[in-house]
């Protein structure tokens, strides 16, 4: 997870990079995802810390609380990780092959950060599941997941669509749609046993 650095500066100094600056950059990108606007922040100063945090949080929340220690939730944790990262890499390769002018890590950065709404949806779903199960419960969760899914799609296409030639835009956006659909499906069908 390399980050883009703002100023090369004098190589003679080579002072250590401040932690606060990186943390603020991650926070700023989260804000940009929540209020998607045409801006270059996610693209120019990319970093992969946000996607890592979101992926770990999502994987932890998608654990079933099983008492049985051998089915320890391990495979599901690794499964979420693999789906998210492998999916993001595949979409990036797809958009590069379609002739997009976005770099590999920038695309990973955008896709990863735009998982934020779905992570919020997962949090809400877990809280809703504390109440009694039933059709109302399910409808609430369905509504929340659909809204957050739409938010993710809007946020990521706001950043990614510009990098594609106009006649290929639908082809580039469709895998993104599928990717977030799979994650939303995992969130919606989650039941703690």
């Amino acid at each position, binding site marked *: 997870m390399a980050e883009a650095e703002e100023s*090369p500066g004098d190589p003679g100094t080579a002072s250590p990079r401040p932690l606060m600056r990186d943390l603020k950059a991650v926070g700023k990108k989260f804000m940009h995802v929540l209020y998607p606007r045409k801006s270059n922040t996610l693209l120019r100063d990319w970093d992969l810390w946000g996607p890592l945090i979101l992926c770990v949080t999502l994987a932890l929340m998608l654990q079933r609380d099983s008492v049985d220690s051998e089915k320890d939730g391990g495979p599901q944790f690794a499964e979420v990780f693999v789906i998210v990262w492998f999916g993001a890499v595949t979409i990036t390769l797809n958009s590069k092959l379609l002739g997009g002018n976005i770099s590999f890590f920038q695309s990973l950065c955008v896709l990863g950060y735009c998982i934020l709404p779905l992570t919020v949806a997962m949090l809400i779903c877990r809280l809703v599941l504390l109440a009694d199960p039933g059709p109302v419960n399910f409808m609430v969760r369905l509504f929340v997941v659909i809204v957050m899914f739409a938010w993710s799609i809007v946020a990521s296409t706001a950043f990614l669509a510009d990098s594609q030639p106009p006649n290929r835009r639908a082809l580039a956006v469709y895998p993104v749609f599928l990717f977030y659909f799979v994650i939303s499906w995992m969130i919606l069908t989650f039941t703690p046993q």
Partner: protein
Amino acid sequence: MLLMILSCVLLNCSAHVGNRRLDSNDDTEDVSLFDAEEETTNRPRKSKIRHPVASFFHLFFRVSAIVVYLLCELLSSSFITCMVTIILLLSCDFWAVKNVTGRLMVGLRWWNHIDEDGKSHWVFESRKESSQENKTVSEAESRIFWLGLIACPVLWVIFAFSALFSFRVKWLAVVIMGVVLQGANLYGYIRCKVGSRKNLTSMATSYFGKQFLRQNTGDDQTS
């Protein structure tokens, strides 16, 4: 998690303080109790560790990630805890080595720069040897740095093969992450060291060429 952030902040603070403390260290080294012998006019300055906190953290995160991986069954029955701990340690290690310890201990840095056209460049820089004494690289730190940098990715690659062949596939995600993160740092710093003008193949060719020549001229002299 809080512990990790605290240790990163500590590392940062000590990095800034360490640069200022350097001058006072240099003053005390000038005093010698006995008459200096002729051979030792070259003071053993270079073998002193200037950034002990940075050196400690450089090795701490890497080694503890490996230790947690090896002892996971003994430490905790929960696979998830171990996995999350290893992931956190690997991330902290990546950030610390890339942004702090490389710059302090060996004066190298590398990053990605995206220019106005949206093109991305990878920049590798090494600190020029300045005339100031306190900016030279110390031998001990350099050895610690390169030892930690090279040994750990090799270990993770070995773990990857062992996980693959013993079918402990659930660990494969973590091990691959270890290989990728630590391998990235290794590659970045090697490129910084080698420099942007030469590439690795031409360095290797010139090195082997010199060895070959030395061997041949050596043979000529003995025969």
